[in-house]
């Protein structure tokens, strides 16, 4: 089979550890020649926000508060051992110490490898986010039907 292999990941979680899994798998697959699509939805959208800290992104007062509470890549919590935000710092320290790529490095690698990143149209609507709130590497805003079409014929993961 000469056709390119394909991996599509639905990044639902906004947790530091699960996003690390998303980007580790994605960059690993892209490096060995896979076409990689990542569809960011709901909490996962935090990973691709332009503002990586906390900011009042959103449409109305409610989504602005949600936007602030959710934050961006730099303030993602761990799914376990978060310790009120100390957890990700400890993990970042352990990763650096053991020469393992940190989440930020993985995201940069994903950009360099040309991984296709997409944002979920419906989740953006709910959270009052616009395409301009995301990093420019986000190719498009999609719904389920378009994502299914993209992922057709490859492997799909939900993280």
């Amino acid at each position, binding site marked *: 089979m000469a056709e390119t292999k394909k991996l599509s990941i639905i990044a639902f979680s906004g947790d530091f550890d699960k996003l690390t899994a998303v980007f*580790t798998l994605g*960059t*690993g697959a*892209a*490096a*060995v*020649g896979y076409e990689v699509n990542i569809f960011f939805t709901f909490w996962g959208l935090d990973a691709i926000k332009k503002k990586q800290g906390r900011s009042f992104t959103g449409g109305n007062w409610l989504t602005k508060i949600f936007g602030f509470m959710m934050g961006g890549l730099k303030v993602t919590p761990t799914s376990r051992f978060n310790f009120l935000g100390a957890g990700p710092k400890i993990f970042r320290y352990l990763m650096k110490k053991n020469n*393992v*790529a940190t989440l930020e490095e*993985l995201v940069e*690698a994903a950009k*360099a*490898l040309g991984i296709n990143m997409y944002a979920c149209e419906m989740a953006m609507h709910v959270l009052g986010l616009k395409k301009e709130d995301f990093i420019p590497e986000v190719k498009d805003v999609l719904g389920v039907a378009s994502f299914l079409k993209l992922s057709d014929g490859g492997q799909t993961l939900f993280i």
Partner: protein
Amino acid sequence: MTFVKTKIELSKLQAGDILEVLLTEGEPLDNVPRNAKEQGYNVLSVEHVEGTTHRVTIKK
């Protein structure tokens, strides 16, 4: 991740350029030369440097 970094560095080079990668034994040392070969790069040598470190020379 070692191959991810290698691949990104290779993409910055011109055809014919040479990349040296220092790798530790185990997964990175198995994985990087194998994947480089599979993707059509020329693995010129794998030499032992010291301890568990090896130097892999790849030609684009």
